[in-house]
Every structure is written in C-alpha cells, then in structure tokens.
C-alpha cells in the first residue's frame, strides 16, 4: 500500500465518518439526556432525506438556482425535528419515562415500524436521486482521483463544526447547562426550578433535527429508498454504544474509526467492509466495557 492509496482511503473514510457522526450525534444527545435509545432516529434520518429531495425538486422546478438546495436542507431538518420529533416526544415518549428501558426502546421501535410505512405511503417505493447541491460545489482532484468538494470538504467541515458547536452549547450556554444539569440529576434540577419536561422536549427536537440533517446532507450523495433508515440506525447504535453512552466526543472518534476502518477494508479486503463497525464495537467494549469515553459507574451500597 503506497502513500497515495493510503491518503485516498483516508479521504474516503473521513467523508463517510462525517455523515455517520452527524446522525449518531443526535442519537447520542438524546440518549445522554433522556436515556432513551431512539430506534425511530433512523426513520427521521430517512424522512429528512426524502423531504430534502422533494423540496429541492419543487424549488428547482420553479427555476431557482441549485445553490438554494443548501438552505433547503436546513429547512427540511428543522421541519423533521419540529413536526415529527416534537409531537413524538410530547405525545408519546413523555408518557413512558417511568417505564423500563426495554419498553422505551420498544416504543421507539414501534414508531420506527409505523414511520417506515408512512414513508412508503408518502414517497412510494421508487428511489429518488437529486444531487443538485453536490454538483453545485463541483469537483476536486487528488492524485488523479476526482472527489466531490461536497463530500471531501463540506461534510467533514460540517461535522467538525457540529462537534465543536455542541460542546460549546452544552458547556457555555445557559440552555446547554440546563440540559447538562438535568442529565446529571433530574430531581435536583427540578428542585432548583428547571422545567425538565421542556428540557427533554427541546433536547429531543434538537436530536431529531440532527437526524433530519444527516438525511438531508446524505441526500445528494445517495439514492433515497425504503430501508435506508434501518441500515443507518443499526450503524448509529454501534457508534453510540462504542462511544460510551452520551459521549459526543466518543461518538466523533468512533465514527472516524468506523469510517476509516470501512474505507481501508474496501482498499485491502473489500469483503470485510461490512464487518468493520461491529468488530470495532466488540473489540472496544471488550477492552473498555463502558465504551471509549464512558466512565464506570460504581454502585453505592
């Protein structure tokens, strides 16, 4: 393996990792704060992608410039977060916070099943493809290999921005501090006047927006078709568990490991590329049972 190939694999891995991270970030955030592993996150991802393609299709059909696809991604993500994520938390999840982990997870699984069919009813089974956004940014050539600026530069840039932004938000803003406080001790936070319900709703919407954003950002690079949510969610699970539950830095590192592992596998042993995320998860948890960035919780007796 020469240096050029090594670098190519590195670029591919980073581009892929960026997308995985954006989706897993939302899942990690929701899990960290609410302790709910949201299976429906995968559906929100898919719906984000579908919405983006539909909106972009409309707007471009009206004759606007393709560059408009970028703001439309944000619009779609927010729509998904507010119109689906919000009611989901408010009408459903709120009722099950006192139930066991298993039941909470199953509720989101039921929502996932329902949303899978909703997607099919709304968008049909035909694959959609709209790469206006990606084409608007053009290509870049590295070692004679053409990459899209969108995947090689924009996606990693967004991922890093989101990581830093989320860290800043949680540590240095009032809302962020409220979220962190509620995460650490819900009762204590409530006793000093924090409205935990509001914090949960807000967190869930942010998480859902991130899922939608992941889908929106993925939409110009892939065919959008039924089943894309199921694949993404299982990968995100691997990221969240490997990272250490609720650890956003861990999620970033894990996404990077998975992205690089997968792309190096494609270059060296293509047949192993599917195995990579799960092998990483098993190996990491074997060595660090609480995940990469997790801390063991000693039980008080």
């Amino acid at each position: 393996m020469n240096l050029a190939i090594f670098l190519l694999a590195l670029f591919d891995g980073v581009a892929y990792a960026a997308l995985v991270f954006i989706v897993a970030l939302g899942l990690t955030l929701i899990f960290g704060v609410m302790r709910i592993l949201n299976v429906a996150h995968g559906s929100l991802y898919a719906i984000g992608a579908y919405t983006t393609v539909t909106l972009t299709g409309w707007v471009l059909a009206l004759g606007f410039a393709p560059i408009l696809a970028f703001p439309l991604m944000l619009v779609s993500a927010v729509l998904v977060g507010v119109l689906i994520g919000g009611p989901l938390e408010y009408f459903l999840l709120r009722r099950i916070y006192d139930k066991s982990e298993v039941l909470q997870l199953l509720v989101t699984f039921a929502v996932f099943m329902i949303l899978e069919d909703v997607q099919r009813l709304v968008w049909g089974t035909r694959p959609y493809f709209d790469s206006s956004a990606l084409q608007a940014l053009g290509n870049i050539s590295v070692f004679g290999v053409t990459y899209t600026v969108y995947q090689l530069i924009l996606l990693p840039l967004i991922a890093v921005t989101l990581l830093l932004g989320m860290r800043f938000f949680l540590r240095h803003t009032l809302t962020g501090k409220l979220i962190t406080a509620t995460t650490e001790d819900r009762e204590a936070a409530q006793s000093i006047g924090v409205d935990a319900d509001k914090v949960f709703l807000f967190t869930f919407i942010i998480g859902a927006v991130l899922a939608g954003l992941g889908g929106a950002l993925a939409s110009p690079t892939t065919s959008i078709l039924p089943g894309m949510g199921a694949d993404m969610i299982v990968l995100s699970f691997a990221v969240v568990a490997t990272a250490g539950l609720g650890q956003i830095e861990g999620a970033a590192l894990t996404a990077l490991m998975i992205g690089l592992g997968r792309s190096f596998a494609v270059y060296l042993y293509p047949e192993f590329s599917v195995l990579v995320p799960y092998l990483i998860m098993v190996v990491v948890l074997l060595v660090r049972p609480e995940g990469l960035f997790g801390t063991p919780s000693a039980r008080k007796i």
Partner: protein
Amino acid sequence: MTNRFVKRTVAAMVAGALPVMAIAADKPESLNVGMTTFLTGPASVFGVPARNAAEILVENINAEGGINGVPIDITFIDEGAGAEALTSEYRRMVESGSAEVMLASISSGNCQTIAPLAEDLQVPNLMWDCGTQRIFEENDYQYVFRTQANATPEMLATVLYLLKTNPDFKTIAVVNQDYAWGRDSWDIFSTALKAMKPDVEVLAEFFPKFGSPDFSTEISRLQALQPDVILSTSWGGDLDTFVQQASQRGLLNSSTFVLPLAESSLERLGSALTDGHIVGGRGDHYFLHPDRRDDEDFQAFMSQYEEKTGEVSVYPVFHASQAIAALTAAYDKAIEDNGVDWPSEDQLLAALEGLTFQGLGREVTIREDNQGIEDQLLGTSVQTGDYPFATMENIMIFDGDELTTPVGENSLEWVQTLDASMVESVTVDQYDN
C-alpha cells in the same frame, strides 16, 4: 378444498389407469391466478411496474371475453414481506383453492424456495422474472415453467455485445450487489469472458452490500485503478446510486460501463448516464423495441401503461406480459388440442411443454426442460434530446437459442467450452437505434 382434493385424487387415479384418456374439467367462473411480486422493499422498482402491467393486461383480456369466455382473476402476493410470509401465503392460496395457476417470482432466492414448493403442491407455476439459471439445471420439474431466459443467455449476450463493440479492451473491474444474482452473474460473465478473450485482466472485484447507499470508496478505488471496462449487474437504487456517483466524479468519462440491467433505470438516471455505455434489459425488452415499436398492439399498450403509471415500460413489464401471454396461449392450446371447453391440469401442463407465445417482445418458446428461450437485446447509451434520459443506439438482438445452455448441461461448464469464434458466428440482428 376437499372438493378439489377429491377431484385431484380421482383425476390422478383415472389418469394412472387410463393414461391415454384425458379428463376435461368443468368451465369455471373465473381463472384464478396468483402472482408473487415485490410490492415493498427495494425490488419493488420491478415488482410494482410488473403488477401494474399485469393488471392492465388482465383487464384487456377480460374486456375481450377472457379465455374461452372465462375471465382471469389475478391476486398479488408481496415478496417483500419476507420468505416466510411469501411461502405461507403461497401455500394458503393454493391449498384453499383460491389460485389455479401461480406466477412466481422475482427474487432468485424465492424462486429456489417456490419451485420445489409448487412441485409439492402440484400447482402449475410460471417463473416470470427470476434470473437464476440453477432452477432447471439442478432439478427436474413437472409443474414449473419459465417464460423468460435466465442469467446465462443474459450474461453471454452482454459479453458478446461488449466484444463486438469494444474488441480491444484490456482491463475490467466489477461492482455487483452482494447476493446470488450479483455473484452468479459475475461467475458466468467472467467465465465467458475468460473463454472468449483470455488476455483480459480483472483489476478489482467489489461486492458492496445489497442496498448500499454509498459507493464513494469503491469509486475512488476504481479511479485509481482506471480499468477500461467496469461491469455492474446491479439494479434499482444500487445501480442508480452507483452510476450517479460515478457520473458526478467523472468515472463515466474514463471507463466504459457495462450495465446489463440499466434499461430499467434509464428514466431515473436522466442525464447522468452519458453516451457510450452498454445497456441491457434481461431479454429483448425496450420500450422502443426496434422490431415491435411499429406494432399497433405494442403502441397501444405502451401508451396505456404510460397513462396509468406516468412512466415508460421497463423489462419487468415485458416479463409480466410474457407470463400472461404464456398462460392464455397454454389454455387456448389445451382447449384446442383436446377439443374441450376447459382443460384439466394435466392438459394444461401438456400444452405448456414446447409452447410458443408472444408477449410484448419477440416470440418465446418453452424448451423440453421447461426453460424459456428468449432473445437478448443490448444497446449503447446515447443522449439524443428526444427524451430527458438516455436511449439506446447501435442495438443488437441476439438469438436466444444459441445463447441458452443446452438441455441437461451445467451453465458454467458449458460456457467454459465456448471460444472467441462465437463473437463472429452468433446470430444477431443489428439496428441503428
């Protein structure tokens, strides 16, 4: 149920005792047909057009009085609900008597499951779309017939077209979906290529997961390798994604793509599929079929279909038409041969042997091993501006007979015995567009 059972038992006993004497059946109120097709899942890009086509065709037949006055009643089973649901619904349909004839199926895996099941249940089953060549090579069936070709002629025609149009290429890479079709089609393609042009070097073999949303890494690797030809037998969303991403990153300019199933993706790919790539459609299927496009019935159906679905026809539509054409032709033949109002099951099976029929494409004949002989159409993509997507030029239609593995032989072994002379000797009709 019991009625049917008694009828069958009696029929079997009598048929055993008096092999020459044929028993006619009463004319039923309707001919119940079950069709398995993907209504959900990624393969619904094939399944839904096929269902739409079948509905139109059955409607048309019934409008003209059905088969000898008996209307066809067709019900669909979703292959997308999984093998479990499929087999149980298939059984239920047959055992409860709500289907006399079955049309199954799309997925090769499902075909492998259903063929022995149909044999067990003793129900005539027309395989209308499955690709695997193994069905009749590994087993003998009495109740199972295939109304189209299989992977072997489809891949052979592709190799021949490639060698006829690009005789000098040196290197090839493959990106196929990771499941039976992707693997088997590459086995046949590579074996045939090795037999006819042994000096070709295979630079890379990729089998990304079925339904993969992203081929960026494979494309980077292919750009670094720069093969002359890139083969992909993928279809549906996978093919769309692969070609779109390759197009965006300029891979379509540096390598010739060979896409034996791209006919079904032409409309969706739009302008992404540039000029000069090889396109096939699993048989002689193309909405601008050069032999057929001037035919009135063909035109009538095409406009009927477009009106109903808003899309142009793709090969599963042709395959559905062939299955239904085979069904009506077999009943007509059985009725005529036996001079009855309505044929018994055995008479129907006898009529299916060696049957010749015509759907939307050219005529198809069912061979003695129940395999259909179907011609193969390939062409080269071109953006003419007449349509908002690529169409085909330099079309060749290969004679199916010469490309189909002889009865009783194994495809891979037979393909190994071929050589370069076939490129010249094969019977082919050429058209400009």
